[in-house]
């Protein structure tokens, strides 16, 4: 009766008008919830998009590389058509997954392709005993000196709390026996020598022409001006030593089974 409230924006916080904030999410909600593009031709078209836009991280066959294995039929960030559509379109926060900006049809076709992968692939049956693997992780490996698991352990290596979601068993196995073969892009080794002769090692966080940032082996976030450094070395060798002589045969199977089982809800 007093007309529309025209000055909502000026209320308590002096902020933005209400209108603009959910444009993208509303558009998403209005989109179809079930995949309308599921023919064989769609799957084939989806495979093409996948090879172009997704395979760099997820592998040409979807079994994972830097990005997770997508052949299990279960997806950590939602397994429904709508969830897959949304995650492909907009990406997933705090992961390397960016969105791909393609017409809806192409994205649905990728969803169809992913479904076809899980029909073919599915869960891998592993030979090892995860419980025994857990004991090995906790005792013999000293893994937790460098790796974090559910909030405890070191930070100089990748956090393993959800490793099973991110990596296929073969990848986990190779990372134990030959860590330098496929290093996590976020954990590149860096070693700098200051003009005074001090040496600092760690994993690279950022770098430009003038400066370099790293997480050092004592877990300090550190930054150096290159003018203050005598040398910057980025060896293509992981800070993690190869553990093939420590974990072999059954032990290795068990450890892999344990790490692959790390899949929190």
């Amino acid at each position: 009766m007093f007309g529309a409230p025209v000055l909502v924006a000026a209320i308590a916080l002096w902020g933005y008008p209400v209108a603009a904030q959910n444009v993208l999410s509303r558009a998403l909600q209005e989109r179809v919830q079930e995949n309308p593009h599921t023919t064989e031709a769609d799957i084939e078209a989806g495979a093409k998009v996948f090879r172009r836009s997704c395979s760099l991280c997820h592998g040409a066959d979807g079994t994972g590389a830097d990005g997770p294995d997508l052949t299990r039929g279960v997806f950590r960030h939602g397994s429904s058509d709508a969830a897959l559509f949304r995650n492909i379109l907009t990406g997933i926060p705090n992961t390397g997954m960016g969105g791909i900006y393609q017409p809806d049809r192409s994205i649905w076709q990728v969803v169809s392709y992913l479904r076809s992968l899980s029909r073919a692939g599915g869960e891998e049956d592993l030979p090892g005993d995860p419980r025994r693997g857990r004991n090995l992780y906790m005792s013999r490996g000293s893994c937790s000196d460098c790796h974090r698991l559910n909030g405890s352990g070191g930070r100089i290596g990748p956090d393993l709390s959800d490793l099973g979601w991110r990596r296929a068993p073969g990848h986990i196995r190779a990372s134990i026996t030959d860590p330098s073969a496929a290093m996590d892009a976020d954990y590149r080794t860096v070693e700098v020598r200051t003009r005074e002769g001090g040496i600092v090692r760690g994993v690279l966080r950022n770098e430009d022409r003038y400066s370099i940032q790293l997480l050092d082996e004592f877990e300090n976030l550190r930054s150096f001006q290159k003018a203050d450094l005598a040398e910057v070395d980025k060896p293509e060798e992981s800070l993690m030593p190869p553990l093939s002589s420590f974990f072999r045969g059954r032990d290795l199977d068990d450890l892999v089974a344990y790490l692959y089982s790390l899949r929190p809800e």
Partner: protein
Amino acid sequence: MTNTKYSGVTLLATAGEKMTHTGYAGAPAGIRRAAPAPNRPLGAIVFAAFTIAATSLSAQGGVSYEQLKAAADDPANWLMYSGEYNSQRFSRLDEIDRSNAAKLQLRWVYQMPTLGRLETTPLVIDEVMYATTPDNVVIALDARTGRRYWSYSHELPDQLALCCGKQNRGVAVLGDRLYMGTIDAHLVSLDAKTGAPIWDTEVGDPRTGQSITAAPMVVRDLVITGIGGGEYGIRGFLDAYDADTGELRWRTWTIPGPGEPGNETWEGDSWKTGGAPTWMTGSYDPELDLLYWGTGNPGPDWNGEVREGDNLHSDSVLAIRPDTGEIVWTFQFTPHDVHDWDACQVPILFDAEYRGERRKLMAFANRNAFFYLLDRETGEFLFAREFARQTWAEGIDQETGRPIRVPNMFPSEEGTLVAPTIGGAANWFSPTYSPDTGLFYIQAYDAEMRYYMAEAEYEEGELFVGGYGKPAGPADQYVSAVRAIDPLTGDRKWQYQVQPRSRSGLLATKGGLVFGGSVAGIFYALDAETGDELWHRRLGGDVVAAPISYEAGGQQHVTIAAGRALFTFALPAE
């Protein structure tokens, strides 16, 4: 209420030793090691040096509660939202001073990944800066270069009920963990080294209009957070969470329930939807062990007819015992507010001789245009005086602290012209106090507005405001100014006028400066004694946040968020 734990560890918090950046250049040279000899325990030989070093040196790690209490002795860091628990927002660094401020140079700019406008107060700990975006991204930067170490992005639901858009004003720290309140009313804990989430607790329900925009405050092992939603008929509260686990320790409602004293100041059931949110960060006095937190407007904002009475404890400051949540005293600035004048200002705590007696004081420049001085031990009202133009009160009763209202100043169907505006004579943006000059500095605005009343019916998750306001003229027709006020008398010492207007926070420094900004994107340094402008730069984005100061690479720096970017200034390197 759910609490997702990403971790079962206890806080590594209080480990004391801080490493300097030169202190361990000769660290053990053995992390990229040769393959271990077979049949020997791996840890024993390969990791020994590393493990020992890591534990005994305890890295950059950890801001203890003792350090937070002693923030005044640690001016190189900016450890909490308002700098210190007393919220003076006073930097004790003095390299940049009156004589050289004109030489300030841009050191770096960091473009934050957001479409919103930054209101963040970054923290700086051992040359690592932690800043936030309005949509709850946290970024760790090298404070010397502005280069990024890591970022964390809180996943937000599609639907949010926010009166005023997405906002976030910063994080809190304890140990090697950060804490952030989110606009979907969660409180999250992050690993300060990596940005990895540790726990995530639901504080409120965003579908009912609850949200968090303020930086939390850490006291001992508690993370204190308020809640926003005063335009959605929420019932306000202040919460304390276990810093380690994220579990709720206590909740104190700002509106008393039935049978509690003060509930009778609400007509009928209106207390249930009465607002009184706690959407800004408060202050703390470790000696008295009291938290001080401002509360927001009663709901609905502009229609008081559905909530007759004083509406306690809206528009108030509450003194609260941090271990229990017990309310020790309260003071209400605007009883039965119908203009949306939240007491959302950050209370500034200082000690001074007042009328011949040394007292523990609180300065509070309220949105309702009056500056109040309270005794923070007892809550005793000492005096109030106008610091900006107002037309709604004859004055404040100097005995009781209650306003003496001018008749017919309530919002109406045809509109009622009242000063100050809905945005107030002041708002959430921080004031500052310099113990050197003894002056209190505030962004003040002398404008007026037409207030309209409308019907108000509560519906969950919908705006519950009962009216609106219209500007009576263009913003620059009124005076907007930084004002220096003697907090013991309310006398105005000087003002620095800002065009078209300003709503930035302020920072006073040991160098005799006051830093502030304007909506025109100008960032300036003033002489704290005289208000003379010593330096300014155009940053090309609304300055709404508050400046901070810290030391990095042996030099004093000043950082301000403007538009979507962080700007950092320092004197030319030698």
